[in-house]
């Protein structure tokens, strides 16, 4: 045995040990733990020995195997855009007639073409109106002008931006609502330009899922009760929070708040400790890395009365103020403006909570009475934030405000729900099918190629382990089509050994010695095997890019399996075969 052989042998041993080591979290979570606990990464971590890989690197079961709901929501941006255009038309007409006094106009909206038609009562005024309107309302462009008739349509880039915003709003609202159910491993992401994909493992109640698209988001303006700034501090001193709830007091703006990582625990703790007519609402402190996660929650004591809702809000935009600080400008409609003026007059110096779907998003202080229906919300101190982050806060707030004001209706595009019992059955049947397939292949190889077949079988088993380890490493999910992909890949992996062994037989028939036959068999078969693997890999990659859900699981398994197969069926079998041929100076090879 030469040095090169020992190097290769050492590498194979190392890879095998590494593979087994990588599979520890997967083994613990799938075999040793209850299905309900598997998705909780912290619980898996607890069960793992210190020397094991982190719990993150484990094989997750897909929604089709563990039960759960996969949903795709479509945001109806078209309806939202129609509504917005109609609203803008109203504003433009009011601006012409009331603010600028340019003359009387009527406005009409074409919901299909998204066009506004302005008609002046006195055709002579139209020239001035056209000039002023186009200069002021830059989000509209002129389509045509015919005497007293001016047709406008929203600017393309505005439409795109608005559509994106609508999807962002819908995502925000959906995240808020799911968070209330306390789903451990939810996944909410944008899909294409107008859809949102939601995965809820372990959930099987589509009724509850529908809640997500149920009502439009509820935006409320409510007064914060700061009559006793030490309210929460005193509560904590009077009744210590339950052990392990991690409830503490934080004080950032001179108003102490309770803070805790668990929503339910926090709400349970404050329950029955709130005075009449008040209510405790929570603010979600988002995880800076993963925006869809709440890292902790903070409490606000607010009035039960809701003096103003998002229905009265006309617009909200993030801007940079004259003193170069981010701010959000909001405008109310006529009714809202009056109510807002009354409210701010009565509450100067107090804080007003902006509440979306029962979550406090911010609580700016009212500095003075605000009339005229438009207000500025300043963003407080920058603190340790960069200007970009600070401005992003303003943008998020504007998004929150708009979510209540201009809701884009959301419809269900796709729901796939699998019950947990079906999932368990599928796992059983799937594993059995994989085992039978594997056994057939192993038996065939052993019978047909004798010792060389057994060597291929060893490589095949290692290949199976490598696939599972590879999937765990990439944090992939195992789906039912994934199991099918696993089985198929094992079949393709053995193909490579068939090619090699047939070639060796052929070389032996040509009268080569065992040693020559093995070397040439491997060398000549290599490129054939390589090409064959690459073509299937190409198909796998395309499937991975275009597929979703379970199908993607199939593609992942196929890709990982083919890569593993290149290693096991060529390198591993060759090292073992070489041992038998060279090591013992054999004159024959058993194929």
């Amino acid at each position, binding site marked *: 045995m030469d040095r090169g052989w020992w190097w290769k042998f050492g590498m194979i041993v190392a890879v095998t040990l590494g593979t087994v080591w990588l599979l520890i979290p997967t083994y613990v979570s799938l075999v040793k733990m209850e299905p309900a606990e598997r998705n909780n990464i912290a619980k898996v971590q607890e069960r793992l020995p210190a020397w094991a890989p982190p719990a993150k690197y484990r094989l997750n079961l897909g929604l089709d195997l563990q039960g759960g709901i996969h949903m795709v929501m479509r945001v109806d941006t078209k309806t939202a855009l129609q509504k917005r255009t109609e609203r803008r038309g109203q504003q433009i007409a009011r601006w012409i007639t009331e603010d600028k006094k340019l003359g009387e106009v009527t406005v009409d909206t074409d919901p299909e073409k998204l066009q506004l038609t302005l008609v002046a009562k006195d055709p002579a005024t139209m020239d001035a109106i056209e000039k002023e309107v186009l200069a002021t309302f830059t989000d509209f462009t002129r389509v045509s002008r015919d005497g007293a008739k001016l047709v406008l349509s929203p600017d393309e880039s505005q439409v795109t931006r608005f559509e994106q915003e609508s999807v962002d709003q819908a995502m925000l609202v959906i995240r808020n609502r799911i968070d209330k159910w306390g789903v451990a491993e939810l996944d909410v992401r944008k899909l294409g330009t107008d859809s949102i994909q939601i995965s809820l493992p372990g959930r099987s109640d589509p009724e509850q899922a529908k809640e997500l698209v149920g009502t439009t988001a509820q935006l409320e303006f409510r007064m914060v009760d700061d009559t006793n700034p030490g309210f929460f501090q005193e509560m904590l001193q009077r009744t210590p929070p339950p052990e392990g709830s991690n409830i503490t007091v934080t004080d950032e703006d001179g108003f102490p708040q309770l803070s805790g990582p668990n929503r339910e625990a926090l709400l349970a703790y404050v329950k029955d400790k709130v005075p009449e007519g008040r209510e405790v609402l929570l603010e979600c402190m988002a995880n800076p890395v993963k925006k869809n996660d709440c890292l902790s929650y903070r409490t606000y004591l607010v009035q039960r009365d809701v003096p103003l809702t998002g229905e009265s809000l006309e617009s909200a935009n993030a801007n940079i103020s004259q003193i170069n600080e981010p701010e959000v400008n909001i405008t109310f409609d006529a009714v809202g403006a009056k109510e807002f003026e009354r409210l701010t007059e009565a509450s100067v110096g107090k804080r007003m909570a902006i509440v979306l779907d029962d979550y406090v998003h911010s609580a700016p202080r009212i500095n003075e009475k605000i009339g005229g229906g438009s207000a500025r919300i300043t963003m407080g101190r920058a603190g340790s934030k960069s200007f970009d982050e600070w401005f992003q806060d303003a943008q998020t707030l504007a998004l929150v405000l708009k979510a209540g004001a201009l809701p884009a209706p959301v419809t269900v595009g796709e729901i796939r*729900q699998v019950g947990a019992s079906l999932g368990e059955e599928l796992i059983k049947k799937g594993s059995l099918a994989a085992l039978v397939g594997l056994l057939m292949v192993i038996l065939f190889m052993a019978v047909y190629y004798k010792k060389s077949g057994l060597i291929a079988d060893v490589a095949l088993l290692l290949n199976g382990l490598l696939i599972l380890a590879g999937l765990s490493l990439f944090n992939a999910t195992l789906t039912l089509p994934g199991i099918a992909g696993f089985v198929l890949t094992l079949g393709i992996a053995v193909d490579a050994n068939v090619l090699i062994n047939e070639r060796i037989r052929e070389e032996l028939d040509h009268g080569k010695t065992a040693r020559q036959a093995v070397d040439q068999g491997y060398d000549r078969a290599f490129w054939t095997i390589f090409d064959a693997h690459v073509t299937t890999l190409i198909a796998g990659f395309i*499937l991975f890019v275009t597929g979703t859900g379970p199908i993607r699981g199939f593609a992942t398994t196929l890709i990982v399996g083919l890569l593993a197969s290149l290693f096991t069926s060529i390198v591993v079998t060759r090292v073992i075969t070489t041992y038998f041929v060279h090591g013992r100076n054999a004159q024959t090879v058993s194929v």
Partner: protein
Amino acid sequence: MRIIKHKTNIDFIGKRKIAVYISSLVNLAILVGIATVGFNYGVDFAGGTVVELKFNHSISAAEVRKRAEDGGLHDVSVQNIGSADENTFLLRMGGVTQLTEENAEKAKAAINGLGNVRNVYPDMNNGIINFRSATALTPDVIKQAVEATGTGVQEVRTLGEAQGGGFDYQVVASGMADKVRASLSKGTAAPDFQERRVDYVGPQVGKQLRNKGIAALLYAMIAILIYVAFRFDFKFGPGALLAMLHDVVMVAGFYLVSRREFNLTAIAALLTIIGYSVNDTIVIYDRIREDMGKYKGKPLPEVINIAVNDTLARTLLTSLVTALSLVGLLIFGVGEIWDFAMAMLVGILVGTYSSVYIASPLTIWLDERAAAREGRAKGGMKAKTA
């Protein structure tokens, strides 16, 4: 142990014309079938709702259908899956929401009866009805009016006041799955079944998925073809491509003739076949290339025949091994997975056949044409061999 001898000498090339004719005919028939009869599209592509139910007592598909119809659920297909004693059924409905053509008309009439209402627009695709009322209405009143006509209402949304006067409302119809539950439990105290799975795909999403699937198939073929052209001589490309197309059409034919559901899993099967089909072809092409160097002077058809014969054992064995791995899935797989395994099996069989009878002969044909053209130009005739 050996099943196939190494020194076979079968005249594959001589039979190539018959094989190509038969294959072309079958392919043509399948394509015509797809165009005229069409696939049995699953919900993934057609849109609709599938509910899998497991009853806790023995019941037949006909009985389930009758119960559904008595409960007011029409146009439902009921299919028994798994073994008979599992009492498991797939219920398939075309619609996604309860707002069907017929229901929408009734609901529209009911809304019009609510007072001064205009612009009533039912949107069957999304299961919503938009309308504008001159006076403010309460969602409850609207909901009651629509539900009285037999359409379940999930929610009534108020969309605010319109600029030209009037109030906008949106009625959202409930999903079909709700209706399944309601109609099947009609007349029973407690439901005697369990909902195991619900698949619900909106028509627009279905269309998107289908277009994406077809695009994926095309991309895969192009990418593989580029790879083959890059790795082998360019004249091998058309042969590999036609063999690939042949295999894909044949597997599509399996879905067409068996009336198995054509869905996302079917696309996955077709894509895998595209990748796998070239496998066998490459094994032979590799050998042809090797032999072309070895037997300089022999005409190409002869070289190809030798190469095909020499690789026959491995061509058949690799297919056999891959087919063996599918046995478990064919025994224990149900539904889509069984279909997938079966489609793969068909693909492997036709893939093996096409590598021998389609891909290799086509190379000869192309070579002959090229030689003939060259011959015409130079005024001489000599078969090109390398």
